[in-house]
């Protein structure tokens, strides 16, 4: 699966100044770097049956993903907040990979 428009909100990135301001680009890169760790924490919460922690982490990730323009991840997190029993770590890792790809592609434009 390759990254698509549904993964990245280009308009949002432009409004943020992600392509003009190095500080914003650094924050986005930082976000992408933390993704694996955050998904691992969600997987741990799901494995422990800690629904509260899973929902909170999904809520947090949804916020930062949406703020950074990664709408695919944000949508998946919204679905997870509503139905935490449907957590699929693999699907989230795939989305994280697509987010990184989409960011790289957008920077290359």
């Amino acid at each position: 699966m390759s990254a698509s428009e549904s993964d990245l909100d280009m308009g949002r990135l432009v409004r943020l100044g992600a392509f003009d301001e190095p500080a914003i680009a650094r924050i986005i890169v930082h976000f992408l770097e933390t993704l694996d760790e955050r998904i691992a924490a969600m997987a741990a919460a799901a494995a422990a049956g800690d629904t509260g922690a899973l929902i909170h982490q999904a809520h947090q990730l949804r916020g930062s993903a949406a703020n950074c323009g990664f709408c695919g991840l944000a949508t998946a997190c919204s679905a997870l907040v509503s139905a935490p029993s449907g957590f699929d770590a693999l699907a989230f890792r795939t989305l994280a990979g697509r987010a990184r790809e989409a960011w790289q592609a957008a920077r290359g434009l």
Partner: protein
Amino acid sequence: MTASSSTRNQLLIVDDDLITTELLSHFAIQNDFKPVVSSTFREAAALDWGNFAAMLIDLELSDGDGFELLCRARKQYPQLACFIVTSRDQAESAVSALKTGAVDYFTKPFEHAQMFASIRAALPRLEKARRAGSLSPCEWKSAGMATVEEGLRTAARNDLPVLLVGEAGSGRRVFAQQIHSRSDRAKLPFATVYAADLDETALELELFGGESRQSPGTYVRRRGKIESVHGGTLFIQDIDQVPITLQGRLIDALERVSGTADARISDFRLIASSCAKLDDPIKRKQFRDDLFYLLSTNTVHLPKLSDVAEDIPIWCDRILTEICLKQRVRRPRFTKGALEALVDYPWPGNLDQLRQTLEQVVVGSEAGLIGREDLPDEVQDGAVSQDGAAVDLAGVARIDDLEKLSLVSALDACSGNRRRAAKRLGVSLRTIYNMIDRHSLRHHPVRTNLP
């Protein structure tokens, strides 16, 4: 809030998501704010919010409810501009937040241009609101408020400690801020300590500073309010709740203020408040008489709102102006009936209750006119029962019985308030007391209209 020039642009960001706080901090700096980030409820709650111009609160924090922070800020720092950040599916919480007094709310993903435009626009308006809501010298109608005004003037002219005595909700903090803002220390910090909310250890840390546990095994030195307020005014709410051991340290701090060059010792003015007179705690050896003597030079007794009911329209005017400037809404007017109801209601929660009521009314009013029907039921009921007190005349055989029945009805409708009952019956206060004695009603149970 009385902010010094250095704190007018400090923005407190309370959000537990690192990425979001990095973005918000970046845009805050771009908009000439100095961001301070708290990633937990606990951390945010420990800060002195008097140092900030505005607060941006995420409702969902890992260790607490952002809504609770908003409520605390509204209670402790009514002039602090609070903004809420929520998810799109938290619309109901956002509405509740606005009703509680948040200036605006933003959903994630936030649009930073819109967000900071809103914050920047609110601050001068809030400053104006602060001035409107402040107790600038005014022609109060009641003798009680005129006495308070005189006390404030005297306290503002000298630099001695002040004791404010008034029951809960009587605006002790507002009056303390007024003394500060009219004093020579006005441009320096003003900090508040709520003694009743803290246990002895926490209160000691709050006042005098010390080692604070940051995480397991990690301690950081925390400055106490006495040190951080250097040059300004420290207000201690409920001084009678300060344990006697700490009262001694407080006296030391106050006595060392004068005549020493030790840079570690803060130069501060103390304003303290108590819900009741301190005679009883002194008799019970729970309050040091030397601290009382230090405080009592400037003592201001704050009346119950119902005792200065003539001034309720002035308070309503000031508070309404302040709320409307803050909430960016057109200032509604009161109908005569609404104002009468507001004046007649006993306000057991005093000014705080009046403010909360007006905030709710402004949020709910759309027509630009606030009628009696827009007021909360209990306020309306108080007024309605006054207009047409239903006195059951069946079985009343004598004039004397009728007088007793009228008196009981008036006392019930006025929640036992003699002065209001007198006004209601069109007799003097002395007559009411005479009637109470004549009918042996001194211990008549009070029926209030409150739930």
